């Protein structure tokens, strides 16, 4: 390794105990998946159906790992170095920007390869079951995953040069990965079968997603198309788009690796109140609630920690909240509008299912970014010591912090209510279902907030806390859906029902009778399970705060 950055980066990752733990957990998870479906009876499965079933779950798990574990490392790569001051040293050394970038990328990719290698024993066992082609299925799957690793690593590195903090890097990367990898497939499913520019763009968007390719590889190509097999595989287009986008990300990142990264003027702290009348009026119109106006003091009835949390978060400032809420309201109304005007022939229940999923996605994406750093950000910045020095009790601090998240997520959820109102207007008989779905959504919010807060409080670094929260929540919300995708084969009805009960999403989808979920009886079982898990997480969070608040 002539490039010293590769060595430093790779060894740095390997010295991280969490990375080692991740490797062990991944290899155990892959082995378990195969073990679960390993034939124990004397029958021979000549059709290879059983191995295909295992291959599906294996492929999706591997894809989830690549999408949500690997980008976390390159995401913090540059910003961590920048904040520690070592990036300035690197840029000041004779190493060129491209060498530094190549070192960082290669170091991350080597770890990614190591992670993929942990799945090889399980893949071999899966292959030994027969019925799976080594080249057209296994080979292609690993090729797709490697391409995906390259694409998202370069994307994460690019994001790392734009953000100002490590946790923002993690948040932005997960949002981008989710948008490109999963949400990108949405427009095509809505517009498929139509002619014109928009459907064409939607087709290319879904072709850029590794999810579509993996679905094709495992024989799930018809799932999104609602029983219509895809016209043709998007594999070639995927490789092309990945290569082009990776190249673009690399070039952009390398072009940004120079002194301009540090060339940032200090904010002048301009206050709207001191500006001219015209500027004040314009800002009032544009922002509604102007973030640059002088704030009045915290009122006596408000929890100071809650107000502080709102003020210190970019998305916590009211003008941002208003934008987010408005965006959610428009999106939910658009979905309902699509159903009523017959743009798609899916019916109210399918659209209802989509809305539920959209809301859960919003909650799962937004909550960790708000709740994971509640304690770790304070500990990292030194604010926790100052808070401990105030006469506020740990209970008051916890209350303020949790309220700040619940209010934000609650407001975003409320914004999607108009969509449901329209739904009830179309089918008045659905009011009870909508009512029960709302309970599920509230429960999902509480569940997510409690788990994110509890997991985040265990770490001292915000970036680690945010990454861990995302991984835990994605595991909790995605694995039941993965198991549901393998319903009846390989997973039994009972197994799927049990898996769907670990969070309120399945319950909401079964209540709204979304296709494929209507056969499961998840209420009130899922409510109880979610309630108990939320309560346990809340206790763990409280316990951790109490522990770190006490004199050592």
């Amino acid at each position, binding site marked *: 390794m002539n490039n010293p950055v590769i060595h430093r980066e790779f060894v740095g990752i390997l010295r991280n105990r969490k990375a080692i733990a991740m490797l062990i957990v991944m290899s155990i998870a892959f082995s378990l998946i195969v073990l679960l479906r390993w034939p124990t009876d004397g029958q021979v499965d000549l059709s290879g159906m059983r191995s295909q079933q295992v291959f599906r779950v294996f492929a999706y798990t591997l894809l989830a790992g690549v999408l949500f574990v690997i980008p976390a490392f390159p995401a913090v790569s540059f910003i961590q170095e920048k904040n520690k001051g070592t990036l300035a040293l690197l840029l000041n050394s004779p190493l060129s920007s491209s060498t530094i970038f190549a070192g960082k990328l290669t170091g991350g990719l080597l770890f990614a390869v190591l992670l993929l290698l942990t799945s090889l024993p399980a893949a071999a066992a899966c292959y030994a079951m027969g019925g799976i082609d080594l080249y057209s299925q296994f080979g292609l799957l690993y090729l797709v995953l490697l391409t995906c690793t390259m694409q998202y690593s370069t994307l994460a590195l690019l994001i790392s040069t734009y953000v100002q903090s490590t946790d923002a890097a993690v948040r932005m990367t997960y949002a981008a990965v989710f948008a490109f990898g999963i949400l990108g497939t949405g427009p095509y499913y809505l517009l498929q079968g139509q002619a014109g520019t928009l459907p064409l763009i939607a087709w290319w968007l879904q072709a850029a997603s590794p999810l579509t390719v993996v679905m094709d590889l495992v024989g799930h190509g018809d799932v999104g198309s609602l029983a219509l097999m895809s016209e043709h595989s998007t594999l070639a287009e995927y490789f092309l788009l990945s290569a082009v986008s990776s190249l673009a990300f690399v070039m952009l990142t390398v072009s940004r690796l120079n002194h301009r990264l540090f060339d940032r003027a200090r904010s002048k702290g301009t206050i709207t109140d001191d500006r001219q009348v015209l500027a004040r009026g314009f800002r009032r119109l544009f922002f509604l609630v102007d973030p640059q106006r002088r704030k009045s003091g915290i009122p006596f009835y408000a929890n100071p920690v809650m107000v502080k949390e709102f003020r210190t978060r970019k998305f916590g400032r009211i003008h941002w909240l208003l934008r987010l809420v408005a965006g959610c309201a428009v999106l939910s109304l658009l979905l309902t509008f699509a159903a009523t005007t017959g743009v798609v022939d899916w019916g109210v229940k399918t659209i209802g299912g989509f809305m539920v999923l959209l809301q859960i996605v919003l909650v799962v994406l937004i909550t960790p970014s708000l709740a994971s750093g509640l304690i770790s950000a304070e500990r990292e910045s030194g604010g926790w010591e100052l808070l401990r*020095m105030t006469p506020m009790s740990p209970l008051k601090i916890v209350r303020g912090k949790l309220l700040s998240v619940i209010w934000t997520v609650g407001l975003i959820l409320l914004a999607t209510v108009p969509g449901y109102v329209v739904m009830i207007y179309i089918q008045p008989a659905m009011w009870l279902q909508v009512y029960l779905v709302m309970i599920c959504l509230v429960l999902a919010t509480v569940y997510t907030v409690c788990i994110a807060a509890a997991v985040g409080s265990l770490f001292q670094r915000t970036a680690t806390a945010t990454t861990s929260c995302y991984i835990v929540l994605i595991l909790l919300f995605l694995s039941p859906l993965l198991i549901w995708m393998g319903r009846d084969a390989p997973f039994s009805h009972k197994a799927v029902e049990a898996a769907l009960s670990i969070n309120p999403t399945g319950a909401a989808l079964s209540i709204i009778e979304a296709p494929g979920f209507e056969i499961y009886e998840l209420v009130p079982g899922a409510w109880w399970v979610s309630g108990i898990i939320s309560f346990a997480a809340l206790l763990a969070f409280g316990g951790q705060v109490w522990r770190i608040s006490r004199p050592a």
Partner: protein
Amino acid sequence: MANSPVVETKALTKRYGEFTALDSLSISVDAGHILGFIGPNGAGKTTTIRILVGLLRPTEGSATIAGADCVTQARKIKRLVGYMPDMFGSYDNMRVTEYLDFFGAAYGIGRRDRVKRVAEVLETTGAGYMKDLYVESLSHGMKQRIGIARTLLHDPQVLILDEPANGLDPQARIDMRELLLHLAEIGKTLIVTSHILPELSRICDTVAIITHGKLRAFGTQAEIMRQITQRRTFEVQLVERAQLEAANAIVMTSLGAGAEANVSTSETEGLVRFDSNLSDRELAGILASLLDKGVSVAQFREIPTDLEDAFLSVTSRDNETSTTERPAPAASSPEPV
């Protein structure tokens, strides 16, 4: 001003397993005084401070602030003490007034009083012009000022400042010194840790030197100097460099030429330098001998010792002790220097 101790520690000890971070520390600080808390990195300064503000529990001993026990009356201590850790604790996207307003609210100061109080502390610390700036955009020196403003919000009796002058430029250091003196003038009791000893020597009434968790010297600066200057350093500046050897021989003879005399000469400067614990009268005898023997003396002077010398003297002695034998624990008072 009444000279009653406001801060008092008795045999304060903190152990982490086998490691003793703080060993039987006993100090006291009078009201309105400034205590300079000196020690090398890892000496136990921050441990002491964290015990005083209630963030750590001592393994043994006690600490009180204005009569309130730092362990059992932690809530009272929070009202009595304003603590500025070495880490600023900034929050993003917050302006200075919002930042101070939050801490004011956290201390339970009413909204109207808070507005007044924030303006007051900004004026006291000379930070009024920063009120609309974002906290994260402040320079280090500005942050230190805001940190002190934050500690003053609830009008505490005692201010404990961990390395307030660390990383400041010369002008900011002068400003900080004036600010601390001003705070002492308005009746605050201050405990200040610092590595910048000349800064401390200009503001502190009392000094505590701590190494390896043990108190090595404690008292007013004059007392510490007296302890340190049991052996003082003198220089004899000659008119003619040719007389250097003769002068050296006379000084050696007068001092008894023992191993402890530590006599040296500097040919380029034309002077003889020596350490001695002789009285002024005996030193006058050495000067007389030099003159009697025809040595032309331009100056016979004592090299003044400062806090830095005292610190170095104590720490070097401690290092010598620690390389041969670890100092025995459970000393309730400072060891003679």
